[in-house]
């Protein structure tokens, strides 16, 4: 085990190196680019024994990923923003074909106006594609989650692809200390991918990606819902197993000082770090406040959330995305599934820095609400 200072992009690349995928089709895009560069270098230096497919677009990146995964090997790809949008159609195909690809998305705003900075609209726009989506908070979690994602996706009860979502720039370009696990331990945790449900071998021909009429389509999609539901347990088990070996604990959600909290912040990704500091500051002033970090957004961990917020009075849900006329996606999902008084806040769009003041504003507006959904830091003119 070594500890190094690195960006989350490097941390993801390190995880990929340790996970040993055999095919890596990637197309560069800000702020994912350095992932594609690190991996190209690792392949060039024989640190990974993989085919690096220099595709001409994100659409072909994910298409080649599906082809390779369908052929029966472990696959990694990564993208961001417009790239993920270009993949949209094939993301659905990948999930429907049940190929356990792992994709890192460097969360970035979507055009127009053109913007390269962070928010989470890109991955949120793909929430119904049938991919597991885990949002990470820091570089260590980016590395650890990438490793865990393979184990979860390749679990025979799941067999759905995973998207590891890391905030663009805030994580992708921030260096911080990261523990890099030993290959030995990773190998023990993550054995090679042995596909049984789908592979392409002339000795045992099968047809993958077939046409299904109304007699079968509904059941095929329902099977994905069943797998997604099962993945809740698999994610938790995988996190527990990971903690056994590597000592770092993760879950579907991560409650912080929620036990006696009257108001609980709910958020995803790097924002949770700053909120945690704010929770401590508010606690020092005697405010009963906590944070519920949502790691798994798909599957949506209703039970874990319900349990974590059961005793609080109100929720302040902060989203880095927006659904017109509704509010943030997390807020909307919480509204449907969680029976609590809650207020939605939209913040950090297109890289607008989420400062402590914004979080305080959300807190105040949850204590004394004026409206259901508030855009934090909105310039009025």
């Amino acid at each position, binding site marked *: 085990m070594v500890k190094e200072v690195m960006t989350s992009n490097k941390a993801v690349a390190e995880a990929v190196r340790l996970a040993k995928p055999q095919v890596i089709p990637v197309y560069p895009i800000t702020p994912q680019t350095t992932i594609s560069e690190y991996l190209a270098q690792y392949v060039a230096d024989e640190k990974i024994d993989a085919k690096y497919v220099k595709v001409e677009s994100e659409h072909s990146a994910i298409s080649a990923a599906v082809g390779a995964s369908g052929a029966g090997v472990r696959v990694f790809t990564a993208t961001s923003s417009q790239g993920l949008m270009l993949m949209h159609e094939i993301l659905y195909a990948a999930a*429907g*074909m*049940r*190929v356990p690809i792992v994709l890192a998305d460097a969360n970035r705003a979507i055009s127009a106006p053109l913007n390269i900075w962070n928010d989470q609209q890109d991955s949120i726009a793909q929430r119904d594609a049938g991919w597991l989506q885990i949002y990470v908070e820091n570089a260590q979690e980016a590395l650890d989650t990438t490793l865990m994602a393979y184990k979860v996706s390749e679990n025979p009860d799941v*067999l759905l692809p995973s998207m590891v979502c890391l905030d663009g720039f805030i994580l992708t370009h921030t260096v911080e200390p990261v523990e890099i696990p030993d290959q030995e331990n990773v190998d023990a945790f993550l054995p090679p991918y042995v596909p049984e*449900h*789908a592979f392409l071998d002339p000795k045992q*021909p*099968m*047809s*993958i*990606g*077939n046409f*299904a009429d109304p007699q*079968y389509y509904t*059941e*095929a999609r329902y*099977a994905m819902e069943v797998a997604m539901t099962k993945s809740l347990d698999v994610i938790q088990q995988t996190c527990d197993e990971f903690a056994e070996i590597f000592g770092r604990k993760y879950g579907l959600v991560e409650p912080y000082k929620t036990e006696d909290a009257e108001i609980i912040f709910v958020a995803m990704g790097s924002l949770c770090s700053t909120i945690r500091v704010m929770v401590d500051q508010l606690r020092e002033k005697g405010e009963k406040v906590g944070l519920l970090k949502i790691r798994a957004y798909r599957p949506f961990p209703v039970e874990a959330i319900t349990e974590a917020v059961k005793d609080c009075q109100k929720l302040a849900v902060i989203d880095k995305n927006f659904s017109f006329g509704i509010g943030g996606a997390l807020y909307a999902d919480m509204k449907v599934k969680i029976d609590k008084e809650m207020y939605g806040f939209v913040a950090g769009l297109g890289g607008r820095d989420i400062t402590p003041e914004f979080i305080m504003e959300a807190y105040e507006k949850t204590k004394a609400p004026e409206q259901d959904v508030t855009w934090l830091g909105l310039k009025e003119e």
Partner: protein
Amino acid sequence: MVSIGCVIKNPGNTRNNKTGSWRTFKPVLDKEKCIDCDNCIIFCPDSSINKQHDIDYDYCKGCGICSNECPSDAIEMVKE
């Protein structure tokens, strides 16, 4: 129950689907006239003629390509 990802593990099983029922005219081969050119086999879109030039009426859709491409007029299309 559908298979995971609707994968088909026993391909070639379209043979369960007897497309012979589509047919209006059926090809009938006069083996006396056959000169073994194999055109009927090569051009059959439904793999319905074997090496011995036996026609498999389970699958033959009656398109008539075999008859049309037979240089010795050995295949006649006959109403079912």
